[in-house]
């Protein structure tokens, strides 16, 4: 217990320190950074990332990976926009979540039953979902509000998803917090959570222990898609519009944050607390850079670097490299010369 727990505590602590350093730096650099307004906006801005990160965390602990979440958010939004007048806004929103879940289910099926590598499966789905979003929207941003004035009540309800408040929090923020807490409980106390750690840690052994590895994996992919649907409803409501270009490269941001938070690409380890910190660190960094009028390009570069550094550290940790031996590599060791003599002497 000591070793495992203290190591994950050390990881959490280092993330907290990292966050503190970034906050202090930007607080010095930008007068706007610590204002209530900026903090509120930032928090609202990260809800999409945060919601997706909860489910990406569970999926990745189970050894999966989903690159299609950003495109799925866009696709679900377009579904709302396209169906709002014929189906009514609320059924359209509900259906969007179903579409998200179906996309996830298809991913899961292809990965677990057909056996396509998750990276390839969801990369393909990334392209398909984005393409469909453009097809269903003719490439245009669809306004999502009561154009005809026939469903006033329904649209008022829908608007609440993005702009309402629950217990003093903006609804999306509340939803995000709730999902984080529920996610933590699920990972900690339920058989579903335990299954994610087990199959991510060793799917072969889990299968031989009698777990239905495929079903658990499929469920995790399905939930990942479902979370894209939920995030999409909140986003569309908040923006009054469905944009086929929405959530660009969002999967990249989410995976960067999650890996930064200590989730391993190999699966089997990590916590949602780590993910929460990863999300905060990454988004704070990007927000701070924005406030300092850094270009989006520079932000992209920074995000890419964070991803590579986080994955690189994860790799080194997983492989448990023997540094002393690595460093010694080419150096002459005591007695090494003797070995050469002996070899040459025959």
């Amino acid at each position, binding site marked *: 217990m000591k070793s495992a727990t203290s190591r994950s505590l050390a990881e959490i602590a280092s993330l907290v320190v990292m966050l503190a350093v970034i906050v202090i730096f930007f607080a010095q650099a930008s007068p706007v950074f610590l204002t209530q307004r900026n903090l509120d906006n930032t928090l609202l801005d990260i809800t999409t990332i945060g919601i997706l990160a909860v489910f990406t965390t569970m999926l990745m602990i189970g050894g999966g990976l989903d690159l299609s979440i950003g495109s799925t958010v866009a696709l679900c939004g377009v579904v709302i926009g396209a169906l709002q007048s014929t189906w009514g806004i609320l059924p359209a929103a509900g259906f969007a979540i179903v579409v998200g879940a179906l996309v996830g289910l298809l991913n899961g099926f292809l990965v677990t039953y057909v056996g396509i590598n998750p990276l390839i499966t969801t990369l393909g789905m990334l392209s398909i979902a984005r393409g469909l979003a453009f097809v269903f929207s003719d490439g245009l941003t669809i306004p999502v509000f009561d154009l005809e004035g026939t469903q006033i009540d329904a649209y008022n309800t829908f608007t609440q998803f993005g702009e309402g408040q629950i217990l003093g929090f903006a609804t999306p923020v509340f939803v995000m917090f709730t999902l984080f807490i529920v996610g933590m409980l699920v990972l900690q106390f339920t058989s579903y959570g335990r299954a994610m750690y087990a199959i991510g840690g060793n799917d072969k052994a889990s299968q031989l222990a009698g777990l239905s590895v495929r079903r658990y994996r499929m469920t995790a992919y399905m939930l990942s898609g479902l979370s894209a649907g939920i995030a999409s409803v909140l986003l569309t409501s908040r923006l009054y519009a469905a944009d086929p270009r929405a959530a660009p490269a969002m999967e990249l941001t989410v995976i960067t944050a999650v890996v930064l938070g200590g989730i391993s690409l190999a699966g089997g380890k990590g916590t949602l607390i780590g993910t929460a910190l990863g999300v905060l660190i990454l988004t704070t960094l990007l927000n701070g850079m924005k406030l300092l009028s850094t270009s989006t390009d520079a932000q992209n570069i920074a995000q890419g670097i964070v991803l590579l550094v986080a994955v690189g550290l994860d790799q080194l940790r997983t492989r448990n490299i023997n540094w002393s031996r690595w460093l010694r590599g080419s150096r002459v*060791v005591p007695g090494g010369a003797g070995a050469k003599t002996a*070899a040459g002497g025959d």
Partner: protein
Amino acid sequence: MSAPLLEMRHIDKSFYGVKVLDDVSIDLFAGETVALLGENGAGKSTLIKILNGDYTRDSGDVMLDGQPVHFAEPRDAEAAGIRMIYQELHYAPELSVAENLLLGRLPHRQGAFGWMVDWNATREKAREALKLLNVDIDPMTKMRDLSVVEREIIEIVKALSRKARIIVMDEPTAALTPPEVQRLFGIIRDLCKQGIGIIYISHRLDEVFQIAHRVTVLRDGKHVGTHPIAEVTHKALVKMMVGRDIEERAEVRKNAAAIQLGEVVLDVEKLSKQGAFEDISLQVRAGEIVGLFGLLGAGHNILTQTIFGVEKADSGQVRIGGQVVQIASPQDAKRAGIGFVPLDRKVNGLVMGMSVRKNITLSNWRTLAPLGIFSQGKEMQNTHHWVDQLGIRMAGGVETHTRYLSGGNQQKVVLARWLEANVRVLLLNEPTWGVDVGARSDIYDQLEALAAKGLAILMVSSDIEEVLTVSHRILTIYKGRLTGEFMQGDATQEKLLHTAAGGVS
């Protein structure tokens, strides 16, 4: 007398504070075969890895021709003429024998076509190399078309063609049939005549008496003794390796042979799987331990996997407690009351990055988390029950990751999992592979205790002493067919080996 070819003196080595080699010495003269014996975990492989430069020793000396040497890397050992031939061979199956022999140093043409391989020269060079051992193999044959022993011979030729002085062979006969073993021994004798020193690692004592000049025995990381082979007996060697008389245990077991057997629990009828096994019928009663003995690749491992639903059978059926069960997956098997302790617990048995507790309860969520939420108290209580019952020892309590447990304790965790799942039938694949002596004895005791409680146990093993020690009844399998059945009192090593090699019982 000239200095020995190789001398390793007073070698110490610890991993994470655990001493795995304690003042171990071994020497080897040119033209000699020394057998290195010891149970799993005795330190043989660590010693060899130090010789090969994979590990560095903590203290002690390694001398070649009386000169101290230090190998920091396998490359250094190779330069000094030391060759390893591992149980698992590394070769390119689609390439020819010649290419495999000369890989990385294929001869090239002269002049403008210097970038092209000179195939004639390749063939000639390979032929020369093969002549070193008088081997009659066409150098242009593809590696995959050779038999196992031929591949092993190619590996030896490869070692020789690069100026070997010492060849270490790790269980080279594990996958060989008796005639192939004799062929290999002929080659080993030739090597000795050429002045090469051989370190021969094997579990099979009869082989050691045939081929070795001297024998060095290790136990629990200590040097037990080195003797000329003519001065030791089979029994004495076993005692040196195990530290006690194995027969004693068998005596105890024989007295207990009047065990009350219950009804048939596992009933396998005419189970067949193409290319693996055919027409297998066997029964295991409640309270019975049936040993299934076969040489590597005889089909016994796939048989248990098939009963457990990992592999699919082509025909035949399985009954549990008289009921025909359809088992298409491990989940089905678990539901039917079958547990499975697989080969290679690190890969197939345990989630190494998860705690002892979570590994023990991994197959019993139905009871511990009926609605998907774990009953924490009950889980902890059951975990402690099995930890006490099986004597699972770990440094940091039940939350320790199984990665940090010793092999024997890891195996007990896998065992505990199926007990926690309350199975009626337990299938075991090589249950003490890589388990040290003490824990091995513990596991045998546990299996007996479990059988006494009415569990039906089918144990697959390639370890003849294990089969003889633990089983009430022994079946032998050869090329996918059952070839013999012995009650414990009647079985002998000779009989088992005979039938397991295809002889008529």
